[in-house]
């Protein structure tokens, strides 16, 4: 494979992973922006969506109806979660709220486990394949063929469409405007006559919609689902949100794509040693990659990502966009 093609393929990978992270991070950031609640159960909303979709598809329900059930089911569970667990602790310290969201996550995960037991399914369920998202897209480019899994293309397009819709909602509707006001200052917004409950519920619902789409795409990409599938994505979404300055929606989008790019670079650059054409590259360059950036470094990728998270929290708690946030980390 030629080098530019390799780069292009990796870039598309990066963007499609990035759009998944962005979808998740936006939901987290919206709720955090208004309530200062880090909703750890956000990843479990994604898992719930994947489970509903999987069970509906396995039961033979046609795809459009199954997807509708997935989105509505996730919204319903999110509403219950907000009403029962998060509303009573709105004034509690941030750490107590964070811990509550862990507990909510535990409840969702173990419920998924119980449900799959009732349905006599294993802990790890194969996600039914969806014809639309199967296979790879082949594009002829000069002498080479660019191959991209269809689901990656769909993730990217769907992600961008949803994010554009969201930005229209936030900037062009009254409810969107109230959400931004509430994120600025919840109490002041309340004094201006904004129904804060409505705003908060809306933030959760939008988060649930985006998380359910992300859950579907993630499940298709990985092929299997399990109760703890949301753990790693939600951690990544946190990092994306922190990169963008926690609480900012546009920051979360930027953070999501930055993280996707960063991860792909951390994976792809060590792989260069194997991909560089030996005939035209000087042996020194190849041996540099093989010695100092061996492919085995890739397994430490997540560790690097978390080191970056910690550094960001310390040095730029306002995110790379550099907002001077009043809730800085100190």
């Amino acid at each position: 494979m030629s080098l530019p093609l390799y780069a292009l393929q990796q870039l598309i990978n990066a963007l499609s992973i990035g759009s998944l992270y962005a979808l998740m991070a936006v939901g987290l950031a919206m709720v955090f922006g208004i309530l200062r609640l880090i909703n750890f159960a956000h990843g479990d909303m994604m898992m719930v969506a994947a489970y509903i979709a999987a069970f509906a598809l396995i039961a033979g329900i046609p795809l459009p109806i199954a997807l509708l059930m997935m989105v509505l089911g996730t919204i319903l569970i999110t509403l219950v979660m907000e009403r029962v667990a998060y509303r009573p602790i709105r004034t509690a310290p941030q750490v107590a709220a964070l811990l509550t969201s862990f507990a909510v996550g535990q409840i969702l995960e173990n419920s998924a486990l119980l449900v799959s037991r009732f349905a006599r399914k294993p802990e790890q369920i194969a996600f039914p394949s969806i014809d639309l998202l199967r296979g790879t897209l082949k594009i002829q480019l000069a002498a080479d063929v660019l191959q991209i899994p269809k689901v990656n293309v769909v993730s990217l397009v769907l992600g961008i469409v949803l994010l554009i819709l969201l930005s229209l909602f936030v900037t062009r509707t009254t409810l969107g405007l109230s959400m931004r006001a509430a994120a600025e200052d919840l109490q002041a917004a309340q004094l201006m006559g904004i129904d804060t409950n409505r705003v908060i519920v809306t933030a959760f619902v939008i988060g649930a919609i985006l998380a359910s789409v992300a859950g579907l795409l993630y499940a298709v990409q990985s092929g299997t689902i399990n109760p703890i599938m949301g753990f790693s994505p939600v951690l990544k979404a946190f990092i994306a949100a922190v990169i963008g300055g926690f609480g900012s929606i546009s920051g979360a989008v930027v953070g999501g794509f930055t993280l996707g790019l960063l991860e792909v670079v951390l994976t792809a650059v060590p792989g260069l040693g194997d991909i560089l054409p030996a005939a035209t590259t000087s042996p020194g360059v190849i041996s540099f990659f093989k010695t100092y950036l061996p492919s085995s470094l890739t397994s430490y990728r997540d560790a690097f990502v978390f080191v970056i998270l910690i550094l960001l929290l310390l040095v730029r708690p306002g995110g790379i966009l550099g907002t001077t946030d009043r809730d800085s980390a100190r």
Partner: protein
Amino acid sequence: MAGRAQRNGTLIVLGALLIFLISLSLSGSNFWQSIVINLGMYIILVVSLNLSNGFTGVFSLGHIGFMALGAYISAILSLPLSQKALYLPHLPAWLAATHLDMMIGSFPLGFLLATLIAGLVVTGVALVVGLVLMRLSGTFVSLATLGFLVIVRIVLINANDFTRGSRTFSNVTQYTDLWWVYAWLLVAIYMVWRIKFSPYGRSMFAQREDTVAAQSVGIVIMRPRLFAFAVSAFFTAVVGALWAHYLTSFSPNAFYFDLAFSIITMMVVGGMGSITGSIIGPILITIISESMRRVEDLTQLYGITQIVLAVLFILVIIFRPGGLFGDREINFAAIWGRLRSGRGAGEPKPQNVE
């Protein structure tokens, strides 16, 4: 008067504990012994976590990472040489040749040494990590320490030469018994108790309640935070060593989010900032989860224990955010006073036992 009652009360509790442990070890019931051993380890974990999270208010989610390091370090030190050559053939020469198995009579001194070395190494790690992370506060420190836990896990999985990666690390000698666990438990409780009622401890609580006010009376907030973090990392690593030499085989998966969350549940239910609560919390949660496990076996509803515990946790946070004890400790003098004067007969209501 109050001091004497407190001392006598403590002595009575210690005596009762001793009688309980002796009768338990004489009874030879493996089932109950394993529950009590696990409970003891949980209590040390919760007491030491409380020192850092409860006393200073810097809420770490990464302590289980210290436990994992303690387990692996001590196990590598105490693994018999033949096993080491077989299972960990790529260890550096000095480690491959180390086997801490010295005995004094029937007392395994080597195990004690391995535990102490693991504890001290981890304390060093905690000082370095803490120097960076203790600058943060609120939810940010929780996220950063969670990041630390993830990093420890990734390193353990990838450091194949030392840890066998994600495969099970096994054939550790079983040294840990009731007496080891409860001896360490007493040391931990004694230390944390002394710290709580020392000027250092009070400055921990002061900067937790109001950072700015504490700074204005001359408390350098970094110092008590770092001290608490390091001491609690030491005892957490000790539990890691005890755990490793009790279970004898384990993998990085044992030290992850589930365990972290159960420890936090025990601490929050007992009360953040209370040593008494850190003892009662684990006892309560152990009773609930052991009885729920029976229910699980009967009904085949696996997972219901976790759901019940999580619901309990949310209820505590909503209705009793301070946990059972809050910051307070059991006060034997007040109990004694209440017992002597009959219930609530004009006596000022003791505010410490609920």
